[in-house]
């Protein structure tokens, strides 16, 4: 029987190291394996025995692209356990910090990693020669996002200012002034970016995803909300593990997450947008309508449009939060340790990020579980590749490979994040 194997030994333009193996037999796609060979980094084990107050600085090291997401989910989980309710200006500042991360992460992916796929360039360097304006816009947007991270997080790489109960230090209103004008410019640049990506040629593709995202009654979700899905799931973060399961696959150092009842599901911008479009301001919905972005987008290649919409939203939301900011009387609520289990789930740029911590009475971590969005999307990514490959089997080998790689990059996987999860069993006899 004729068998063809397509191997992509190193998937470019994703964060981290991974490969793809596609097996085709008798003209049918028989097997798709997205292998993550980024070495496991054992963060969950590393957290055991550390104090709850150390967690935020440790988890910020997991990812250089989305450290805020790790801090936000961790702090939400620990505050859930300690009974601390964060609202008012502290909540606003954390949301503002998340805006910075969404802006810088999405802008990097849109222009530097994903756009070359649509325009036929091997990478951003080649694309920059012909689309310099678009790259300059992305650099300016990324710089503005990084400036928010520096202001609120202390630095843009592995930020250090978030603490349980609030922040170590909160800025004055005056400290925001230098960033207001760049944010206003960023809004315009983000709108230009949306209109630019809307001109891309999008392959026909419709996928019947179960979307999973946070939903909050008052806001487009970032730091809080219930976990909902397009199939009717509606649970608190504390119920995550009753509905979702992480399982090992032999070919990857990352765990795969599934819904116990229904299998693979999608998290990330497409899911967030599909489940929360009603929480976006009307002017942003109007921009989405203007470029033809449907209220529920099921074509993964069009995820770039959703990211672009979210960048516009994050820029505008940041300005709104700054405008309404009143410096709190104290930067944090005191946190007293107690024994128990806490759960947190927030919206990383790539989708929901779930954390669970068990503390003893002195506040020492006894157990930690971290489920990043890329682990959750791996099943969907493999299904996407299977569908795209099945429709592309007649293409030359390099075009087939490009189509498969593009379908992976549709979901902006962060391989470094996904490879933190390996349970080590020691069998002693």
């Amino acid at each position, binding site marked *: 029987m004729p068998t063809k194997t397509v191997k992509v030994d190193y998937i470019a333009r994703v*964060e981290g190291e991974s490969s793809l193996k596609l097996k085709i037999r008798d003209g049918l796609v028989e097997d798709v394996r997205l292998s993550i060979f980024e070495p496991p980094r054992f963060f969950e084990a590393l957290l055991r025995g550390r104090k709850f107050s150390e967690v935020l600085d440790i988890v910020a090291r997991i990812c*250089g*692209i989305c450290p805020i997401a790790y801090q936000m989910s961790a702090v939400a989980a620990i505050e859930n356990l300690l009974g601390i309710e964060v609202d008012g200006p502290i909540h606003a500042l954390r949301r503002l910090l998340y805006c910075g991360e969404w802006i810088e992460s999405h802008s*990097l992916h849109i222009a*530097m990693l994903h756009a070359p796929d649509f325009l036929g360039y091997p*990478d*951003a*360097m080649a694309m*920059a*020669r012909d689309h*310099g304006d678009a*790259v*300059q816009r992305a*650099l300016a947007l*990324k*710089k503005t996002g*990084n400036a928010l991270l520096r202001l609120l997080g202390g*630095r*843009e*790489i592995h930020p250090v200012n978030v603490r349980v109960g609030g922040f170590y230090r909160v800025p004055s209103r005056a400290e925001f002034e230098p960033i207001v004008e760049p944010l206003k410019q960023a809004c315009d640049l983000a709108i230009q970016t949306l209109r630019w990506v809307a001109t891309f040629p999008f392959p026909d593709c419709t996928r019947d995803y179960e979307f999973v995202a946070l939903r909050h009654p008052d806001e487009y979700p970032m730091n809080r909300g219930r976990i909902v899905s397009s199939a009717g799931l509606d649970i608190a973060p504390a119920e995550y593990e009753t509905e979702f399961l992480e399982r090992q696959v032999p070919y990857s150092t990352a765990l795969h997450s599934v819904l116990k009842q229904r299998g693979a599901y999608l998290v990330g911008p497409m899911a967030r947008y599909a489940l929360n479009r009603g929480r976006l301001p009307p002017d942003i919905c109007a921009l989405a309508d203007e470029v033809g972005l449907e209220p529920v987008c099921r074509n993964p290649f069009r995820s770039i449009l959703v990211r672009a919409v979210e960048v516009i939203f994050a820029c505008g939301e940041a300005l709104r939060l700054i405008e309404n900011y009143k410096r709190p009387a104290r930067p944090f609520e005191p946190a007293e340790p107690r024994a128990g289990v806490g759960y947190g789930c927030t919206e990383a740029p790539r989708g929901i990020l779930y954390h669970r911590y068990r503390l003893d009475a002195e506040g020492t971590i006894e157990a930690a579980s971290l489920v990043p969005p890329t682990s959750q999307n791996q099943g969907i990514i493999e299904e996407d590749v299977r569908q795209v490959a099945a429709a592309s089997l007649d293409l030359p080998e390099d075009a087939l490979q490009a189509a498969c790689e593009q379908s992976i990059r549709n979901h902006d996987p962060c391989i470094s994040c996904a490879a933190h999860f390996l349970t080590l069993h020691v069998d002693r006899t």
Partner: protein
Amino acid sequence: MTGDSRTGFLVIGVGNSDRGDDGIGPAVISRLRGRLPAGVSAIECRGDMLELIDEWKGLTGVVVIDAMAPRSRAGRIERLDLSSASLPAEFARHSTHTFGLAQTVEIARSLNRLPRHLIAYLIKSERFDIGAPLSPAVAAVVDTVADRVLAELFRLLATGGAEGFPGIGGAAE
């Protein structure tokens, strides 16, 4: 990105001091503190190299110090003039950064945002372990790299940048 305010000449130490030989850039910057001639700034870049495109825009001369693989002949110093030539492929792989020096330089070149003179000092490295110090072989060349960078800067300042950096092309020791 941490360091002094920008002037016409800039030295950039790329890397993470907590990742073994990746810390060579910051280590050289540390050696240069207090020794830089007037008109020269120094910064560390711990990760996001794309921001360098904005940092060096419009400057006359920039020297970048970074660690490089392959992990052989640790401590060997490669000097490359990137003002008009790309980083050779053998130097462009295995960056620990999302966008490494090679990609950042080429994007800047495409955007016409390179400084007038751009020199890279790349130090072959052998360890990038979390929490590790510089390997002995790389630690041994920190002073040498700092001295060579200083010599370049003094010469360039003497000519006002008109003659560019000396020794165009690669040179190793």
